[in-house]
């Protein structure tokens, strides 16, 4: 069957772009949109994909990442779909891309102005763990009533002596809306703050779009005496590349049974390894 450029019909794309503009205008606010069904399952990145499909043009250069890898199942799946319906140029290099769709990571290479990072969001509502009802959470956002988000963290401190929220750690955007940053590790939260690029977040199943425009304040929730902490890799060195200070995957050496660490952002690691090669040569 013949298909439109970038799969969706133009009416749908226009509606999604309009909602995206609204999201950019109100940083951190979840804008409801009529999420379309896509050839990729709900929960598999359809929110991010709808943003990508509605924004992409023939001039764009696309990078797709899943869990830090350009070759993980979800990334391959999504890249193939966008490729088959647009034939745009693709890349694995963050700096070359104009549009980056990612699941669960913000790349190690900082975004540049005019780059767009699209993040896939499973649960856009940061207050959902304390309030199941959508109509109530909407009121809470309206009143800027975020004690629920803090109570959850406070209770963790009472029970465990420290905050136990791992990934998808809630942030305050522009001093107004508490937002779920999508399940990126805490390591990536600070990258959202005063960032040069545009970050868009799409939740397909929950039908919400939210955004962090360039140069916006993004602050991870915390207490004065229990500050926000990122995952600690300070004493770890990447076994493949020798890199430090990056988010790493923990692996087990099948022969020795030893735990070792490898840079999670694989394209970044390749770039670094290639640089080294060319220096050595």
């Amino acid at each position, binding site marked *: 069957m013949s298909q439109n450029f970038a799969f969706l019909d133009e009416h749908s794309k226009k509606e999604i772009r309009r909602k995206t503009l609204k999201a950019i205008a109100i940083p951190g606010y979840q804008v409801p949109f009529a999420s379309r069904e896509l050839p990729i399952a709900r929960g598999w990145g359809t929110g991010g994909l709808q943003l990508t499909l509605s924004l992409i043009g023939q001039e764009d250069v696309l990078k797709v990442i899943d869990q830090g890898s350009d070759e993980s199942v979800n990334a391959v799946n999504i890249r193939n779909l966008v490729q088959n319906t647009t034939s745009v140029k693709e890349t694995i290099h963050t700096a070359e891309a104009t549009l980056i769709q990612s699941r669960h990571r913000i790349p190690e290479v900082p975004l540049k102005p005019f780059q767009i990072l699209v993040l896939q969001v499973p649960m856009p509502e940061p207050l959902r763990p304390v309030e199941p009802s959508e109509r109530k959470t909407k009121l809470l956002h309206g009143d800027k009533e975020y004690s629920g988000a803090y109570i959850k963290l*406070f209770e963790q401190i009472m029970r465990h002596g420290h905050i136990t929220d791992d990934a998808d750690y809630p942030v305050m955007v522009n001093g107004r809306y508490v937002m779920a940053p999508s399940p990126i590790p805490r390591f990536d939260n600070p990258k959202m703050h005063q960032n040069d690029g545009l970050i868009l977040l799409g939740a397909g199943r929950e039908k919400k779009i939210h955004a962090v425009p360039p140069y916006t304040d993004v602050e991870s929730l915390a207490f004065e005496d229990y500050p926000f902490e990122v995952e600690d890799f300070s004493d770890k060195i990447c076994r493949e590349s020798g890199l430090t200070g990056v988010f790493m995957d923990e692996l087990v050496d099948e022969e020795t049974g030893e735990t070792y660490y490898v840079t999670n952002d694989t394209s970044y690691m390749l770039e670094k390894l290639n640089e080294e090669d060319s220096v050595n040569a």
Partner: protein
Amino acid sequence: MHKTDDVVLSIKDLSKQFGNGCDYCKDDSAELQKNMCPHCNTVHAVKNVSFDLYEGEILGVVGESGSGKSTLMKMLYFDQEASTGTYVLPEDPNAEDNVFLVSSQRKRQIRNEQLGMVYQNPMLGLKMDFSSVTNIAEKLIASGNRNVGQMTDRADHFLNKVNIPLRRKYEAPKNFSGGMQQRVQIAKALSNYPPILLLDEVTTGLDLSVQADVLELIKEIQRDMGVSMIVVSHDLAIIRMLCDRTMVMLDGQVIEHGITDQILEDPQHEYTQQLVYSIL
């Protein structure tokens, strides 16, 4: 007796109806079946209630179930919207003309900073699965405190005050007895040092000895902290023990009010007389 003549809470012509009302029952003097309009079935749960609460006093509201006293309380704490009426908190720095009309954000602020509420059902006032200390910190967090140490200190202070052993502070109220749950509610309600405390049938359903402990605690708090309180109860014995002044409600209206001793010694309204004689 209240300590000064300063009014801390003032209610004028407060009404709450369920239903749209009709020409017949819009007339204030219309005969109703108890509190229901015989023509349109509209329930007038609270009708034209006015009163002032003075600094440091305990005001009692007594009446049978369905008299409107709990609805009144829910409106004061913004759990339910008023149909008509004005509500002024003169001691509040903002002192709006009518806090029924302020934004919901501002109402939340008033709830957190000016008022404390203790419900008959602790499920309404507490997060039963969260630790007691977190429950007490909730109001502090809501009014902007972001210092864990400060908040746990405050929680410890009030848990002490309501006689809950600190070794149990990390336990969730769902593990506690009814009397202890009410104590946690009271500690929570007090956590922000609100000038006004609202107590809705707080001892109903508790054992007599536990009841006496909780009542003693309420008296003590009033003595030590000078908090103004409104106490709602169907039980005149409790009203007699706690309250300086009392209002008697029947079918949504205040039928008698005055100094508690006076009402008990010389009840004017027929209904009040029945109430008083039944406990003597």
